[in-house]
């Protein structure tokens, strides 16, 4: 097992009349246990030059991770404010990450294709993005495309 911690702070002094300050820290455990997640795809930084959708973490056919619980980080490192990536899971759009935006979410990939996370860049002129999964899944490929 490994010990991995994640923390998030949300702050604003002018969103409300009073200041906003939220702070959270959690340790990443395997589903239903206090045993640390022990695998990672590693932090991948890549320069994408096409608007073609791709899978950062393809789920291999036959993989059964529905009861598992990993964590996914995806960031758009672009500095051009109009550039974004669309993050989808299966056929549903999670949302857009504009320049500088990131997401952090749980992921229980049940089936190949159905639960795959997909990234679609908005431009083909080149964007830096980075992504990472921390998990204990059986059979996901880092950084390769599925069909």
């Amino acid at each position, binding site marked *: 097992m490994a010990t991995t911690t994640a923390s998030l702070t*949300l702050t604003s002094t002018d969103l409300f009349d009073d200041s906003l300050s939220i702070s959270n820290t959690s340790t990443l455990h395997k589903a239903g246990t206090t045993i640390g997640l022990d695998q990672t795809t590693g932090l991948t930084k890549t320069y994408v030059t096409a608007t073609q959708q791709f899978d950062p973490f393809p789920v291999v056919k036959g993989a059964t991770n529905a009861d598992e619980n990993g964590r996914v980080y995806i*960031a758009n490192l672009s500095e051009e*404010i109009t550039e974004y990536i669309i993050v989808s899971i299966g056929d549903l759009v999670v*949302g*857009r*990450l*504009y320049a500088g935006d990131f997401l952090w979410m749980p992921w229980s990939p049940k089936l190949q294709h*159905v639960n795959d996370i997909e990234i679609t860049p908005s431009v083909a002129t080149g964007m830096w993005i980075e992504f990472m999964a921390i998990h204990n899944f059986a059979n996901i490929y880092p950084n390769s495309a599925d069909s």
Partner: protein
Amino acid sequence: MATINATLSVSSGDISSNGLSLTNTMTMTKAGTATGLEFSSGLIRRKLTATTEIDLVAANTAQVYGTPTATTNANKIYIKNTGSSSTDYISVGLGDATGAEELDDGTSKITLGKLYGGEWMIIPYHGASNVGDVLVAPSTAEATTIEWMLFFE
């Protein structure tokens, strides 16, 4: 406009042979601009006492705090399971609340993952009219308290 910052830090000394240390800060802006998001649901806190799935945000529907712009936006949603249990969780999904689970048909819903006690997430909120609901279902009928907050344009 407002200035809203979110900072994520992930660290481990032993997830790999060289450890991991990641920090990233984003300032929440409106889509394609440098103008900050200016609306929020406020931090909503709710105690759930059934395993019934509920809508945290219903797509394309007026909320008491306003109606988030759908589809072409840079909205964000933060969700936390405030409990401390390592075995009880909430499942978080997206899609059509009335749709079937995991069907690849564009009118279904898909479970993203689980938040056990103390766990949280922050993702963009898309809000497409037919499949943009954010859904939560507790794993237990014992009291589960969740918090969520939508930042939107």
